Each structure stands twice: as C-alpha cells, then as structure tokens.
C-alpha cells in the first residue's frame, strides 16, 4: 500500500482508517480510571491521534471556506448560470463552467471504464493465481508506475498515444463503430478519448496495488472452505474471495477516480484544451483542473481570477458528490453480503 502515499486523498483515507480504530479501542480504555489511562499513555495517544484526525477535517473545511470566499464575484454575477452556460471568455468577462465539468466527468468515466476491468483482473491474477515470487516482482513495477510523475505520462501521451490514436485507433474505431455518435468527427489524436486512455494508464497501478493487497488479506479459510465444498479455483476466487474483498476493491476504484478527477498535467497535454461539449469522444475538450492550471498565473482582473477559483469549488463539490455516491454504493452492496473487506 506504499504506492499511493504521495496522494493527499489516499493519505486522508489512511487517516480516516486510523480514526475508525479509535472508537473500537474505547470500551477497553474506558474500564480504567482517567489517571491510569493518562499514566499509561493511552489517553495521550488517543488525544494526539484525535488531533491528527481532526486536522484533516479542519483542512477540508478551511479549503471550502477559502474557495467559497474567493469566488464571491462570479457567484453573485452568474449565480446558477455558471453551471449552465458554456462560454468561457476572459476578454468579455463571460464565464460558464459546463464544458469543463463535462470534460472532467467524461475523461474520468472513460478512464474508469478502461482501468477498472484491467486493474481488477490484474489484481486477481497477482493475488490469487500468480506464484508469490512473480506477484511480488510485478508489484514492485506497479508501485514504480504509480510513482511516475504525471508530466511523464503526459509526454508519453503526446509522443506515443496521440500519434497512435490519430493514425490507427481513431480511424479503426470510426470504421467499425462510426455509426455511434461517440466515434464521429475528425481524428485529431487529442481529445476526450485520448485523455481518458492516458488517465487510465495512470490510475491502473492504484487499482492493482490496492486491490491486490486487499485480496491477499482475505483469510485463507475462506478459500479453503470454498475449495473443500467442491468449488473450482476460479469459483472460489470469483464467488468467495472477490465478494469478501469488495469494499476494499471499491476503495481502490474511488482512489483512482479521485486521481482521475484531479489530474492536471497529463490531461492538459492530450485533451486539446478547447471548451467544447460534444457527444464524440474524438472531440477536443477541456477539464476543470487543466483550465485552472493553464489560466491561473496570468488571470488579470478579479472576476476572471475568482471564476477560476469558483471552478476549484466546483471540482471540490464534484469530488464530494462522487465520493458520497461511492460510500452509498458500498453501504448498499455490503448489506447484501457478509463481506467486511480489509478491516
């Protein structure tokens, strides 16, 4: 699980995991007097770890407050139209966020569509089927991939993925599936699809790495019980181990989603940077994180600058909603089964 330590969201998740263990230690600690707990350090440890956990909440709240206060002008001027209009014109002070929201959601969805099956498949192989030696060796490479800076993925996208897309993949898709609105229009190489693919390459290591750990932590008894009941190896994996690890696997996907939503550098290098809303995945687009990074440094004029900050707020809200939906999904699915995941 070392691989995602650089990611602040991952770190937040880790801290959140730590806090959930605090109440479970509560009843044991509560049976002794405060003085003895203080002397033995339990209470001190509790308070210190509580502070650490609370600081995460504090930072989040401050962030929201800052984004909210920093975007007063456009909120008053455009109101809800900020989310509905699609003109982004710094010269004539017209700002609409819709194409950026659209681009962010589309690229993240494309990347998940590609990365989830691949990532979970690879994790199953590494955890269940591969010899431990091979699994550990591969895990090393996967962790390495997760640590590659995103600008490198961006360069990879520009020099390898974009030409491939333009010359081979997009014409082929157009030829076979051109009747779908998804695969129409000129093939520039850059665009939603390319950005989604580059993002998928970036997030697959997260899904593999975390899912593999989770699958490995499923108790041996579970597998043995299934096998002893006459299940084949695949049946034991697919019907017992994977459902047992479901929560953790979902966790890895959300982590990947969070990274995909917030990715800036790699996306801006291959998405085409044009605020458009198009049903075609070949069309160039723009994402929230990319436009903020591209325009923030030279944003003159308060309204312009604050509109960019409001975009930051929008991205925050978007992440918040998606995370909330994700938690609901976990709750809904874990009520049906008995799996408790990797706790």
């Amino acid at each position, binding site marked *: 699980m070392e691989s995602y330590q650089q990611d602040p969201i991952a770190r937040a998740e880790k801290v959140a995991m730590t806090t959930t263990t605090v109440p479970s230690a509560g009843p044991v600690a509560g049976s002794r007097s405060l003085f003895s707990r203080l002397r033995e350090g339990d209470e001190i440890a509790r308070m210190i770890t509580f502070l650490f956990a609370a600081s995460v909440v504090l930072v989040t709240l401050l962030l929201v407050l800052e984004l909210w206060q920093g975007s007063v002008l456009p909120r008053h001027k455009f109101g809800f139209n900020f989310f509905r209009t699609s*003109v*982004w*014109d*710094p*010269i*004539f002070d*017209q700002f609409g966020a819709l194409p950026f929201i659209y681009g962010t959601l589309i690229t993240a969805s494309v990347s998940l569509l590609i990365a989830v099956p691949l990532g979970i498949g690879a994790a199953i192989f590494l955890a269940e089927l591969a010899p431990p030696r091979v699994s550990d060796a591969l895990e090393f490479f996967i962790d390495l991939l997760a640590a590659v800076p995103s600008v490198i993925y961006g360069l990879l996208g*520009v*020099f390898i993925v*974009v*030409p491939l897309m*333009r010359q081979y993949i997009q014409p082929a898709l157009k030829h076979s599936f051109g009747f779908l609105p998804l695969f129409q229009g*000129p093939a*520039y*190489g*850059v665009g939603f699809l390319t950005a989604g693919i580059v993002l998928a390459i970036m997030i697959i290591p997260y899904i593999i790495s975390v899912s593999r750990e989770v699958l490995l932590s499923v108790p041996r008894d579970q597998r043995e019980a299934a096998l002893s009941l006459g299940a084949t190896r695949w049946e034991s994996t697919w019907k017992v181990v994977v459902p047992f690890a479901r929560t953790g696997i979902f966790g890895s996907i959300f982590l990947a989603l969070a990274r995909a939503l917030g990715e800036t550098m790699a996306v*801006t*290098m291959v998405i*085409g*940077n*044009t605020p458009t809303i198009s049903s075609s995945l070949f069309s*160039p687009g*723009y994402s929230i994180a*990319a436009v903020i*990074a*591209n*325009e923030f*440094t*030279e*944003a*003159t004029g308060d309204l312009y600058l604050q509109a960019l900050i409001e975009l930051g707020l929008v991205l925050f809200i978007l992440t918040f909603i998606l995370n909330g939906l994700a938690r609901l999904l976990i709750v809904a699915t874990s009520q049906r089964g008995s799996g408790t995941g990797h706790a």
Partner: protein
Amino acid sequence: MKRITGLLLVVLVAAGVLWADSALSINGAGATFPYPMYSKWFDEYHKRNANLQINYQSIGSGGGIKQVTEGTVDFGATDGPMNDDQLKAYLDKHGSGILHFPTVMGAVVPTYNIPGVDSTLNFTPEALAGIFLGKITKWNDPAIADANKGVKLPAEDIVVVHRAESSGTSYVWTDYLSKVSDEWKSKVGKGAAVNWPVGLGGKGNEGVTGTIKNTPNSIGYVELIYAESNKIPYGGVKNAAGVFVKASLAAVSAAAAGAAKEMPDDFRVSITNAPGKASYPISSFTWLLIPEKFSDATKRDAIKGFVKWMLADGQNYAEALSYAKLPEEVVSKEWKAISKIQ
C-alpha cells in the same frame, strides 16, 4: 572531525552575517517570455556589482502586475502593457504611479505543417484573421493561395492550434489580429487568454509545435526565439506597408523604430502592424514595471543603476539570446524617463 565541523559552522555563520550585511537584494516577478534575457542580465550585473542581488521569478505577466500592485515585489515585468484600470488600481493603492520601461523585443511567427509543401508560405493579415476566426477552412482558399502563387496547396481542412495556457505570445498574436481585423476585435479581442473561435490548445510553445508536427494541415504560432532555436519553419506576414516580411531580429527592430516616432511618454505602446517597409508586423516590446516612488533610497538607486546599465551595455547581450535590441530612439527616450523614479 568534530572540531572541523565546528570551525566550518563558525565560518558559515560569519559568512552569513557578512553576506546579510552587505548584499542588497531586490525582488521582481512577471513575464516568462523575457526570462532568459533577464536572468542573463541579473547574473551579469551581479558580477559587476557583487553587493546587489536581483531575484526574478517568471510567474507570468498577470502575476507580475498583481504582485507589484500588491507591493510584494520591488518591480514587475510584463509582455502586455498595464491597462488604465490596472494603472488606476496601482495609483489608488500606492498614491503614486508605476512606470513602464521597454527592455527588449520579440516576435511571434506563424508556423504550419502541410504535407507536400516545403516552400515558405506568405500570409496576408486577412488570411491569418480568417483562419483563426474559422472562416477560412481550406488550405487552397483564394485568400491564402493568392499570396502564394506557384505553391500547390491542398484542398484539406485547416487545423488551427493555439496556446492552451495564458501567455504573452497569445497576447501579441491576438493584439495583431485585433488591429488587422475588426471582426476579430469585436468578437474575440486581445488578451493573454481569449475565447478562441476554433482550434486545439497546445500547452506551451513546445505543446503548440508538438501538435503541429503531429497534425497534418495544421497552423499555429510560436515565439520567434523558439522557432529559431528549434529550427521550426515559419511563414512571412504582409506588413502595413504591403511587403511580405519573414521575421528576423532586424525586422523586429525595424518595427520598433517605425513605432518609435509616435512613442507615448509612458511607453505603453503596441508595435504590432507597425509602419515601415522592413517592419515585421507581429512584434512586441516587453516591459519592466518600476514604481515611481521608493521608500528605500538604496533600492531606488540600485534599480536606477540597473536600468541605466540595461539600456547601455545590457543591450549587447540581447542578440545572442535571439531577442531584438531596442532602437536608439527608444533608448534615449527611456534614459530621460529614469529620472521619474524617485
């Protein structure tokens, strides 16, 4: 071993104290386009004046204007002059004004990739504006073809590439298009980032060139320095006198000389589409933004000293770095303006 470490520490601390005592440090921030020039200048000037250290952060013109207005840096730098609102904001905050000093000049050139076309293309202002407005969509459009007799242009769609991020290069490009096309002026306007009617956004000069190299039948714009140092082919542009000029340092200086006659006293002038037969029309100054009033007299004298040096000896470093020198008329005019710094 311990003794050596201790001794080293003492020396370091002593050096630190002495250093802090004697060195005056001046901070500036702003435009990225002249950064190689400025860092060379500040380095050379530091060699001549060991007790003066000028630090410059190339955070972008917008950031430079913002920071100097807020007073977090001693001077700013910008690729596009401050507008009246920004000047007023500065005056309101500080009670005194801010001065523009042109330092060097650069140019922006159209670059393209058309399979089968090797010769240098010529562009009329109408063709460039039409292409970037999305009105001229084919390479064999008469607006392009008429200026390039003898070149066989394909009947392919034009792919427009512009800068994705805000930049001084885009400012100069859109400033030029606003001057030559009323429709551009009213629909798009000029700025470091605009609402582009058509095209793909490439990140940085390298992103634009990369996209153009990768995309057949594309056109975009990059800085002259970048095109020169990376051997990127670029086209000529018809200037205000009706002559097709390919960008060069001499052609940029000529544009500045052409504009110098009508140079306003505050130096806030655009030299795009400048008069003169030899002028390259998409040229621009880049400016230092220096406050009129300094509370710290040593800082003031240090900055004045630097500007004087920059206008004299400093100019000789420009061409080696592919920046165009200031013409004589502008230098002498700036020399007089130095006395306004108080």
